[in-house]
């Protein structure tokens, strides 16, 4: 059964490819497949929405792109480098979903943003002028300068997202993976974040965004990857792929999805 249907290559393909996931399968330790034959491409300076149910393979795909899991088959290339090499160089920046973060942890926004620079520092993590400058610019970019010294738990939902976005910017990676960036925020905050993400895209940043929020996908994602049953069903231009029929295949009539 071949569920892999590749539609036309995204319009952004004229630009260089930032991420290439080519027929990748990943297995759990016990041998069961966590991801099978997944393929998608992400052009530099574009936003790709990753849409699928929980347990459909989204987080496995993220972990594979970050180099945490080794594919059984296929290749993952980040800027033409293997995901392991990309991991060593810190090329993939990960923005966690809110539930993953311990908001009571005694760190400030500034501490978090500087953590984005650790990969660029020596092993003692000594902060150089360049690190401070880039961290400062990253904070400015997301409009969080005035909250620099706040403990992260004192921030509003939108500010929390922006703080971690600033960390990803400070990391200066080649692609950003955003895990449910609209989880638990209200509609106006979501609009602000979308505006910010679009601005970052226009500056040349490449983003892969996992989301449940179907309403907003059409408005700001250049491409869409639909993921179900542990594989990428389809990916391509939003207007071609993001259709009611395809969404039915992802969300409707799906058999039970074992937990990821």
């Amino acid at each position: 059964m071949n569920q892999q249907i590749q539609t036309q290559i995204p319009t952004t393909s004229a630009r260089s490819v930032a991420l290439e996931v080519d027929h990748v399968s990943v297995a759990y330790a016990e041998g069961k497949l966590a991801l099978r034959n997944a393929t998608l491409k992400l052009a530099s300076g574009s936003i790709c929405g990753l849409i699928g149910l929980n347990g459909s393979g989204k987080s496995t795909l993220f972990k594979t792109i970050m180099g945490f899991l080794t594919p059984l088959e296929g290749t993952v290339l980040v800027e033409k480098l293997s995901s392991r090499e990309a991991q060593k160089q810190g090329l993939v920046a990960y923005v966690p979903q809110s539930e993953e973060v311990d908001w009571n942890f005694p760190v400030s926004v500034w501490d978090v943003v500087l953590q984005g620079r650790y990969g660029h520092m020596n092993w003692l993590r000594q902060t150089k002028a360049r690190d401070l400058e880039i961290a400062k610019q990253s904070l400015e970019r997301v409009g969080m300068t005035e909250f620099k010294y706040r403990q992260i738990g004192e921030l509003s939902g939108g500010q929390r997202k922006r703080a971690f976005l600033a960390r990803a910017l400070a990391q200066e990676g080649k692609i950003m993976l955003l895990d449910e960036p609209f989880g638990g925020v209200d509609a106006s905050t979501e609009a602000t974040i979308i505006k910010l993400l679009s601005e970052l895209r226009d500056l040349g940043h490449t983003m892969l965004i996992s989301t449940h929020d179907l309403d907003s996908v059409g408005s700001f994602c250049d491409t869409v990857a639909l993921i179900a049953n542990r594989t990428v069903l389809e990916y391509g231009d939003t207007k071609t792929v993001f259709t009611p029929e395809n969404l039915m295949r992802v969300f409707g009539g799906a058999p039970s999805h074992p937990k990821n």
Partner: protein
Amino acid sequence: MDFATLLTTLTAPFQYDFMVRATLVSALIGTVCAVLSCFVILKGWSLMGDAVSHSVLPGVVLAYILNIPFAIGAFVFGLLSVVSIGFIKSRTRIKEDTVIGVVFTTLFALGIVMMSRVSSSVHLSHILFGDILGISDSDIVQTVLIGGFTLISIFILRKDLLLFCFDPTHARSIGLNTTFLYYALLTVLALTIVAALQAVGIILVVAMLVTPGATAYLLTDKFERMLLLSVVSSVLSCVFGTYISYFIDGATGGCIVVLQGIFFILAFIFAPKHGVIAKNRERQRQQLEDRSEFAVQSADD
């Protein structure tokens, strides 16, 4: 009682060499434990600390039988418990807390059995409850070396360890070796436990590794300040615990840990932001605000 007599009474403990030594050594142990406790509680490893500390007992008895420094036996069994826990967890469906419970009680029980077989040694009971007043010169050297090594290691790795506690996924994604950090933190945990056994013994050592950090965590939202407050409360507990134990002729380890508990209770009640009183006041303020807002709205209607 006039002032001079009072002074003589109060300074009496320090006329004894063993009291001065005990106070200094307990302050050092308190410092090392306090620093590590900040990482332990932020990582959520309190149970792991309990596990490692209990698991060292068979190692200590074995070292006694083989006549080698007990720190070596303790350290080996501390690490053995950690490795066994990791191994069993990865190969069964049993949850981690259960695995920890099974492993450390088994090792501790084994130690008890071994201890009862070499019953002649009074020395070994000191490992269970601590014996800082009777600490030998070679034990002091051992404690200073282990404590110094632990403090230096944590100082060098502090930023990476803190990031590892806060966000291991990010740490890994920027190329940090999180497996190394995991074992580094466990190793210093095991070493600190070995160093602290002298003061409070196996059974109470987990308190030294958890309570100061927990107290400090209630008092501040800044990590550097948390470290400082943790060390202050821990050293005060160690020094005064040793001091008080002289007057009441009670177990030193017990006195130290009770004082740490008192510091925790004080922080729990009076902490400026996260204490019970502050939280109650905040809730009342919130309710008043909501009510007045409601009143304004009603007036508008």
